C-alpha cells in the first residue's frame, strides 16, 4: 500500500510539475514596439508595451552581432557647457538584453566624447510607465528618458510640466540635423520636448497564398484606405477574414490620419470629430463589421500580438505591422514566410503616411541639463543611429544618416526590403494630431461611441455627436 501511495505521489508530482512548467512556458505577449496601428497608415498610438512591432527587438534570441565599437569622435560633442562631474540617469524602454552591447558601447563612446560625465543606464520593460510615474511622484525620475512618440508619452509628460523644453536650449545647427517633421512632432503649445530617435516603417505583411486563393493580385493591394473594405469583402467570400485594427488607445489620431478628420476646433475649445468626415470614417468600420469581413476580436484588441498571432497562424490575408516582425513569421511559420509579401501600408485621407516612433526627452528639473541634453542628442545623432540600424530594422531620424552605404545596399531578406525606401517614407512623417486636452478621457468617450456604432447598432452620426457633447464637457 505504501509503495502504491509513493508511486501515486510521484506521479502527481510529475503531473503538477508538468502543469507548472507548461504554464511557465506559456508564450506571454512579448511587449515590444512598432510603427503601426490599424489597417492603414495611421501611426501606432496604442501603448507601446502592448504592441508587438514597435520595439526594435524581435526576439531575445536574436541578439545581434556585436560589431567593433565605434571610436570616439570629438565632432559628436555638439552640446556646449556640459557640467563636469555630472552623473546622469538614463532609462530606455524594452531594449535589454538584445541591445545591451550597443547601448553600453554608445554610452562608453559618449563618456569618452564628454569626459567627466557618467551615465547610469537602466532598461525598463512592461512596467516602464508605472515605474516612470512612480519615479516622478517620488522625485527620482531619470534625467534622460526614452519616450514613445507614437503613444503620445511626450505630450503627456510635457503637458504636465515634467519635461525640459528644447527649442531655446539646443543650438539651431543641432536641430537641423533631424527631419523637420520629426523635430516638430508632438509639440505642446508650440514647443518641442523631444529628440527624435529610432523610427519604424508602416508596412502590410501579405499572405500570398490567401491572395492566390481569393484570386487577388498582391500588386493590386490598395494604395489608399478606401480600398480596404472592398478587399476584405473579396477575402471574406474566399473564406478568410481581414485582421485590421482600431487603435483603441488613440482613436482620434486614427481618425485624423485615416479619415482626415478635424478633431478639435482651431481655438481648441470644441471637439469637432462628429463632422461628415468623422462619420464617414466610422461608417467604414461599421460596414465592414456588418459585412462580417473582419475579425472582430482583432479589430478591438489593444494588443498587437493578437492580430500578429492570427496572421502568423496563416488565417489572415494581410496585417499592418513593422517590417522587423517578418522575422517572427520566419520563426513561427516557415511555410507562411515562404509566401510572405510586404507592401507599404495604404495611405489615409490625410495623405500623411505616419508619425515618429521613439524619442528621447530630458526631465525638467534635472541637476545636469546640458549633460542630459548631450546624452539625448548623442543617442539620436546620425552616427549612433546608423550603428543601431545595422543591428535591427529601425531607421534614423536624420536625413544625413541615410547617406551611409548601408541604406543603399540591396536587402538580403524580405524584412529589410523596405530599407531603400525608408528615407523617402520617413521624411514625410509628421504628427498632424493636435494636442488633445484630457486625451485619455476623451479617447475613452470616443472608444465607447465607436463601439456603440460598430457593435451596438447606434447610428454613427448620433454616436459621434453624443461623444462630442461629452468630450466638450472635459474642456476647461
Amino acid at each position, binding site marked *: 500500500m505504501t509503495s502504491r501511495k509513493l508511486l501515486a505521489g510521484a506521479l*502527481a508530482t510529475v503531473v*503538477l510539475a508538468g502543469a507548472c512548467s507548461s504554464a511557465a512556458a506559456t508564450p506571454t505577449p512579448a511587449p515590444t514596439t512598432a510603427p503601426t496601428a490599424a489597417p492603414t497608415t495611421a501611426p501606432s498610438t496604442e501603448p507601446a508595451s502592448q504592441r508587438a512591432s514597435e520595439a526594435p527587438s524581435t526576439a531575445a534570441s536574436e541578439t545581434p552581432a556585436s560589431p567593433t565599437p565605434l571610436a570616439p569622435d570629438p565632432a559628436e560633442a555638439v552640446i556646449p557647457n556640459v557640467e563636469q562631474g555630472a552623473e546622469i540617469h538614463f532609462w530606455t524602454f524594452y531594449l535589454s538584453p538584445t541591445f545591451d552591447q550597443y547601448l553600453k558601447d554608445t554610452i562608453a563612446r559618449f563618456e569618452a566624447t564628454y569626459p567627466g560625465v557618467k551615465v547610469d543606464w537602466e532598461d525598463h520593460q512592461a512596467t516602464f510607465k508605472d515605474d516612470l510615474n512612480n519615479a516622478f511622484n517620488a522625485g527620482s525620475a531619470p534625467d534622460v528618458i526614452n519616450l514613445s512618440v507614437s503613444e503620445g508619452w511626450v505630450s503627456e509628460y510635457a503637458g504636465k510640466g515634467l519635461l525640459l523644453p528644447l527649442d531655446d536650449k539646443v543650438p539651431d545647427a543641432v536641430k537641423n540635423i533631424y527631419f523637420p517633421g520629426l523635430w516638430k512632432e508632438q509639440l505642446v503649445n508650440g514647443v518641442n520636448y523631444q529628440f527624435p530617435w529610432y523610427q519604424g516603417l508602416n508596412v502590410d505583411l501579405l499572405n500570398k497564398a490567401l491572395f492566390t486563393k481569393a484570386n487577388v493580385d498582391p500588386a493590386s493591394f490598395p494604395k489608399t484606405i478606401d480600398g480596404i473594405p472592398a478587399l476584405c469583402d473579396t477575402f471574406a467570400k474566399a473564406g478568410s477574414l481581414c485582421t485590421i485594427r482600431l487603435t483603441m488607445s488613440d482613436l482620434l489620431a486614427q481618425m485624423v490620419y485615416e479619415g482626415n478628420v478635424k478633431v478639435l476646433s482651431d481655438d481648441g475649445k470644441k471637439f469637432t470629430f462628429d463632422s461628415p468626415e468623422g462619420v464617414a470614417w466610422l461608417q467604414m468600420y461599421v460596414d465592414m463589421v456588418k459585412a462580417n469581413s473582419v*475579425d472582430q476580436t482583432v479589430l478591438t484588441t489593444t*494588443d498587437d500580438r493578437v492580430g500578429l498571432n492570427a496572421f502568423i497562424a496563416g488565417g489572415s490575408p494581410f496585417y499592418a505591422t513593422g517590417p522587423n516582425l517578418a522575422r517572427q513569421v520566419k520563426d513561427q511559420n516557415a511555410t507562411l514566410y515562404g509566401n510572405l509579401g510586404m507592401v507599404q501600408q495604404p495611405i489615409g485621407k490625410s495623405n500623411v503616411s505616419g508619425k515618429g516612433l521613439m524619442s528621447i526627452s530630458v526631465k525638467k528639473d534635472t541637476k545636469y541639463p546640458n549633460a542630459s541634453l548631450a546624452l539625448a542628442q548623442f543617442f539620436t545623432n546620425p552616427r549612433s543611429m546608423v550603428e543601431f540600424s545595422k543591428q535591427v530594422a529601425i531607421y534614423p531620424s536624420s536625413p544625413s544618416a541615410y547617406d551611409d552605404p548601408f541604406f543603399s545596399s540591396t536587402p538580403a531578406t524580405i524584412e529589410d526590403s523596405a530599407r531603400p525606401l525608408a528615407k523617402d517614407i520617413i521624411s514625410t512623417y509628421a504628427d498632424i494630431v493636435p494636442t488633445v486636452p484630457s486625451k485619455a*478621457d476623451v479617447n475613452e468617450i470616443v472608444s*465607447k461611441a465607436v463601439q456603440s456604432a460598430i457593435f451596438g447598432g447606434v447610428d454613427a452620426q448620433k454616436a459621434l455627436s453624443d461623444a462630442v457633447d461629452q468630450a466638450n464637457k472635459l474642456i476647461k
Partner: protein
Amino acid sequence: MTLRRRLIPYLFLAPALVLLAIFVVYPIIAVVGYSFTDYDIVRPPVFVGLANYEKLVDDPTFWLSIQHSLVYLLVTPILIVLSIGLAIVVNRAMRGIHIFRALYFVPAVSGSIAIGLAWTWLFDRNGFINSVLLSWGLIHTPIQWLANPSMVLPIAMLLTIWAGVGYYSVIFLAGLQNIPEELYDAARIDGCNSFQKHRYVSIPGLRPQITFVAVISSLAALKVFDEIYVLTGRTGGILDSGVTIVFYLWKQAFVLSHAGYASAIAMALLAMTLVFSIVNVRFLERGDAEA
C-alpha cells in the same frame, strides 16, 4: 504581573503588527485619503472633497461594473454544488484516485494568467472550440466568441468555475473525511439510499466548509480581475461587456490615471465586500444554529 511579563506577548506580536500596519492599515488609510482627491500618480494629489463620490453616483460604467460583479456571484453556488459533488465522487478508495485528485487540482496551482491565455486560445476564432463545432457540423463559420458582448462574462465565469472546483473540492473532501463513518452506518440502517445519505449526513456535516467556501468564493467573485483582464485583452470587452468592479478600478487608476477616482471605487468595493461578508456569515451561522 510584572511590566515585563505584560509586554512580552506584544513583543511577539510586534513583527506581524508592524507588517500589517505597513502593508494593510496604511494603504487602506491612504486610499480613504486619496478618494477625496484628484490624483494622477505623477503629480501631488489635490483635495476635491466629495467630487469623486458624486461622480460615482452618475457613472453608468461604475453601475454596470457592479451589475457584472453581482452576476459573477452566480459562480459561488455553482462552485459549491460541483465541488461537493466532486468531493463525494473522489472520497472513496479506488484505483488511481490519488492521480485523479492531483489532476483536478492542477488548475488551482496554475497561474491565472496562463489559464486565461489558454482559454483565450480555446475560444479564439481559429481555436479548439470552433474547430470541434465545425468538425461536428454544428456550425458552418467560426464563432467570434470573445467579440460577442453577451458571451464574455459567461466564458469568464466558466473559467472561474473550472479553475476553482478542484481547490474547493479538496476543502470539502477534508470535511467529508472528518464525518464519522458511524453516521453513514446509522443512515443505512434507517433505510437511506445513497442520495439521502449525502442529503442527511454529508451536507449537514459539511456546513462549516460550505460557510467557508461561500464566503471566500463570493469575495473572490466580487474581486475578479485576472480572467477579465486576459480574456478581453485588457479592454474589458466590447461595450464594457466584461467590466467588473475591480477591472474598472484598475482601468481608472492605471489606464486613465485617475487614482483618486479609483480610490473612491475601492471604497465602494470595500463597503460591498464588508456588507456581503457580514450578511453571508450571519446567514450561514443562523442556518447552522437551526440545523
